[in-house]
């Protein structure tokens, strides 16, 4: 009897269950311990919100969090604009000079080690004599995240029936109108998902931000990173839990957006 889809062996079920436990248990443990009253990270001292109180009284941490949120919102917005344009150019532009270079430049950062991207951008900023801080980090994050936006929007755009636009043009729209009135509304969910992804990626980055920021303008991950290097602190559990909560909200919105767009198709990229 051949195994069919939906018919699972004990081995399949065990592999899935262990895999999911491996992926989620560490995060669950972290969240639980963020409500631990004890100063010792490993001793359970009862439920408490003291580490959350501590965060909201930590000026430096709050500044870093605010900086990160601003960088993430702005860079995600610019990245979504540029990434969507890039996707339109790649999917609809047919052949143009330098297309291979263009798609190469957009795909490489997806897997490029961050130390290289960070170092190279810093050397550019130094050569341009740019003051390092909010703007340089924002530009760096835009460059990285627009590539992710491009991939997300591109896969959706490629799945849309061109004859819809052709019909709109037969009915008197010019190509730009046809795109704006017919295609754009169809790809909006993927654009929203792209923005969300860009936002979370920016909120997560330590390496590129460390290279491209200046003194006095640390992002939240940079601060968390320097604290973690010194050892485990219960306060970090609380901050981490809040970041996870924020990202969860973002994911829910993004998945609702892709639900609205109907079947997103199975993409090989983890997006």
């Amino acid at each position, binding site marked *: 009897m051949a195994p069919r889809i939906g018919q699972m062996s004990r081995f399949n079920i065990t592999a899935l269950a262990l895999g999911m436990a491996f992926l989620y248990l560490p995060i669950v443990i972290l969240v639980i311990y963020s409500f631990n009253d004890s100063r010792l990270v490993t001793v359970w001292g009862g439920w408490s919100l003291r580490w959350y109180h501590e965060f909201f009284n930590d000026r430096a941490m709050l500044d870093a969090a605010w900086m990160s949120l601003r960088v993430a919102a702005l860079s995600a917005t610019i990245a979504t604009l540029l990434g969507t344009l890039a996707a339109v150019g790649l999917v609809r532009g047919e052949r143009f000079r330098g297309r291979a270079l263009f798609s190469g430049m957009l795909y490489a950062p997806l897997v490029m080690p961050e130390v290289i991207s960070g170092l190279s951008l810093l050397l550019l900023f130094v050569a341009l004599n740019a003051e390092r801080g909010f703007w340089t980090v924002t530009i760096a994050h835009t460059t990285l995240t627009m590539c992710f936006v491009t991939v997300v929007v591109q896969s959706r755009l490629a799945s849309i029936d061109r004859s819809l*636009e052709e019909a709109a043009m037969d009915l008197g729209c010019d190509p730009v109108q046809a795109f704006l009135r017919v295609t754009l509304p169809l790809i909006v969910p993927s654009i929203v998902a792209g923005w969300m992804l860009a936002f979370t990626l920016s909120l997560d980055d330590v390496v590129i931000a460390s290279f491209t920021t200046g003194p006095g303008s640390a992002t939240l991950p940079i601060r968390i990173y320097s604290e973690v290097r010194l050892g485990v602190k219960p306060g970090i559990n609380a901050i981490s839990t809040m970041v996870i909560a924020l990202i969860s909200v973002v994911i829910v919105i993004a998945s609702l957006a892709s639900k609205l767009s109907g079947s997103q198709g199975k993409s090989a990229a983890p997006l």
Partner: protein
Amino acid sequence: MSARRIFAQPARYAAIAPYLWMVLFFLVPFGFVLKISLSQTAIAQPPYVPVFDFAEGWTAIKEAFAQLSFDNFKLLTSDSLYISSYLRSIVVAVTSTLILLLIGYPIAYGMARLPQRWQPIAMMLVIVPFWTSFLIRIYAWINILQHDGLLNQVLLALHLVSAPVVWLSTDTAMYIGIVYSYLPFMILPLYATLSKMDASLLEAAADLGASPRQAFWLVTFPLSLPGVGAGALLCFIPIVGEFVIPDLLAGSGSMMIGQTLWLEFFTNKDWPVAAAAAVALLVLLVPPLLLYDRLQRRTLAGGG
């Protein structure tokens, strides 16, 4: 003139802004890395000579070229610190990719065998950790692996060990961190190929007398190789340049190339050597990057 033709023109213009952006902030910076990797270290701000000064015109640029030196690359190939970190990066990346494949394949296979309506949920569950902060997930493991952390508490309670085991600052901890962080990158391409596989092929194999095990090794596994390749490259390439995970979880004894680059840049302030390390890392990554690009093209061409 077909509608297709008319449309291609404005769509092409859409690419102009992102094109210029990527040239300025992705391509041009590599030129600077290359250039500074050929410069000499100096106690100055910025800490290298020669500095390109476009204002001084062409002769100054020519002079700058005359001063380029390959000393940094000589240093990279003669100092055992760099050679060993280069080799360690490759060893760590290969080992991690193999472990990821061993763990990721059964999970992806299990996902592909789930009832159809459960599959999107399982996929979502794999994607969510990818969105969740990478740094925080590494930190979560530090919590668990520390001296009096949960893992040691459980092991002691079960009497599996008699004294707390040192997990942090070991290669084991680093591999756990890497596998944990990159698992979604391995599972998703594998799942994408496995779930597209035609189930009737397995039925045919069974009709022809193959046991389920034989059917797996003779039919399923060979057909999933494109997914194996994509997943392996998607993990291997970034792991080679990994910095945060080995820095937080591995011991300080031996470093990966990303750590060497970081140390030279931030601690030793030796920008030219850091740039040379980046060039060396890039050279190492060109073959897998090209291979990945070819695989992607083939998948896209195949309607994947």
